[in-house]
């Protein structure tokens, strides 16, 4: 399909730019379909071996099957896997009961901050897409974060054509978004075309399936009978339901996502 080829070409171009412009990039992998497709794009861009670490943020609240999927694929694709965990908060028993905003910030954002500090990464490749959420629709391909990890969304860089801004003066790192322009449907068509592995939780069982994967306490399945990739593609062509409808942190309050992202959430 020419459309998928165009999407892929641009993503590969962006990944190669990130690798050429930054000293220590890393890619974030949630084990979900988008970031798995992004890892595959990395393999394509760099001719098989991903030349930088793959970070998985472990909140310890992920679904069991996500851990199994992670460990299998990490081995199969020869990843240099780095697990980021906020050990301190986890030891203190921090969790969803403390509020979704606080929990996401501590267990995800803070875990990632520490991982960046420890490893000195200056670019983080993330598989966010514009069509997932209104706030993500406002993102740049290369998006700087300041020393406090914050996204200055009111003063984003001029980003014209494919001439990305990669300076990092008093910026601790740059977020790179190689699949920003993909839709959910594109990802699934790409998964089908490239025969990519995906977590079985995406496929319907007893009339329900997960459309977006996160932490177990905060992620709900949707009603669906789509039990194959073909059926998922068909469902997405027709559905009126938002992709992240099962993700609690998006809907707790108005602008929770904006506040989370301003603090450095993905």
């Amino acid at each position, binding site marked *: 399909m020419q459309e998928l080829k165009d999407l892929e*070409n641009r993503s590969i171009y962006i990944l190669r730019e990130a690798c050429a412009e930054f000293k220590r990039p890393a890619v974030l992998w949630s084990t979900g379909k988008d970031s798995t497709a992004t890892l595959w794009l990395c393999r394509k861009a760099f001719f*098989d071996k991903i030349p930088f670490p793959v970070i998985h943020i472990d909140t310890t609240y992920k679904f069991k099957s996500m851990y199994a999927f992670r460990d299998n694929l990490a081995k199969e694709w020869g990843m240099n896997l780095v697990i980021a965990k906020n050990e301190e908060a986890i030891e203190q028993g921090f969790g969803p009961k403390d509020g979704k905003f606080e929990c996401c910030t501590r267990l995800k954002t803070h875990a990632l901050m520490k991982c960046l500090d420890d490893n000195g990464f200056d670019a983080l490749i993330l598989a966010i897409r*514009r069509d997932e959420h209104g706030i993500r629709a406002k993102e740049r391909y290369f998006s700087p974060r300041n020393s406090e990890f914050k996204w200055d969304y009111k003063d984003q860089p001029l980003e014209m054509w494919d001439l990305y801004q990669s300076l990092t003066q008093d910026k601790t790192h740059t977020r790179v978004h190689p699949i920003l322009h993909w839709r959910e449907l594109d990802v699934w068509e790409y998964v089908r075309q490239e025969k990519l592995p995906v977590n079985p939780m995406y496929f319907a069982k007893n009339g329900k399936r997960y459309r977006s994967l996160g932490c177990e306490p905060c992620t709900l399945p949707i009603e669906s009978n789509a039990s194959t990739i073909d059926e998922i593609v068909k469902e997405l062509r027709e559905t009126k339901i938002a992709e992240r409808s099962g993700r609690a942190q998006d809907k707790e309050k108005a602008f929770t996502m904006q506040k989370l992202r301003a603090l450095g959430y993905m």
Partner: protein
Amino acid sequence: MNVNVVFTGHVDHGKSTLIGRLLYDSDSIKEGQVTEIQKLAEEYKRRFEFAYFLDAFDDELKEERTIDTTKVMFKGKNLYTVTDVPGHKEFIKNMLTGASHADVAVLVVSAEEGVQEQTGRHAFLIHMLGIKDLSVAVNKMDTVEYDKAVFEKIRKDVTKLLQSLGYRDLNFIPVSAIEGDNVYQKSEAMSWYSGPTLIEALDTIRPAKIETKPLRFVVQDNYTVNSDRIIVGRVESGILHKGDEVVFQPSTVKGKVEDIRVFNGKLEKAQAGDSIGLVIDCNPNRGDVCGLITDPPVASNQFTGEAVLLNNYLRQGEILQLRCGTRKVRCEVKQIQERINSETGVVIEKYPQQIRQHDAATIVFATEPLVVEKFSNIPELGRFILIQDKNIGAGVVLEAAR
């Protein structure tokens, strides 16, 4: 086919509302989004607005204006990526960011206010960006009682503005985003108008004819894979074949393309847009541009460009960085030939010592060796950004030295 369309125009002329209406009427709004927005509107004691589908920042809602550019997608006869841009002067940076990927523009003009400052500036900038396909939506027709005379007056004013930039044969569509007239559905309130609705105008867009252009491949990097050295980059124009004799500039190295590589495969040829790898017996650098030895790229130390400035000042003699393709070079503002009012396109000063924020200008740049192409010939290598700590301006190449 995929169409990138940007909605431009003055603040409060209804760009976001018009896009929101398009999404709503084309049934592209997700379930729950309407109730979510109704809830928000209540919380902020506002009435329901179609613009809230786009304005996702709380500051945008509080201030009732768009701050940064948004892209949303919906399907008509084409698959549209619609870009909303802010209409405030202080956010021109975000407007340019949003408009730089567009194939098509819609200029939104309020029937109440007619041509305003950013109407002119946005028209000038989309023209500078080389967007040739432009429609004009005269919005808020409901507020002028769908009066044909108001529409005709604005059509006259905007035609004058756009003709001075070189636009001809434009679609003018009277619409009301709030009421839904002539956006997705034909209006019953304007029987005097027999032209297309906005969606009909967009749906008639067909891909531009692909012209035969010389091969230009930009080098991003080189990798060593299983002891093979692979030069990676993108074909920006033309076609590259296995076996081609090519030259890289400004490195000046030459070679024969032994293989065109992609992951797990080899290609016989690659075309514009393809991200590929080359196996070749020479050593080009990141930033080089490659072409056939029979029609090679030329590196030079000087070119003339038209640029728009986003930071406070740019002075003659100033040294900064410039990026074109994948090459970043030091450059000097050798001579500012014309200072141009970006609102009107009119030259306001010849050979000034400096230009200011939001000015456009014709500038002669002296650079380290660099391949640029005339924007009208090969746009991909005819556009550049100016860098001083951050990206401070952007422009297109008017004349490349040969």
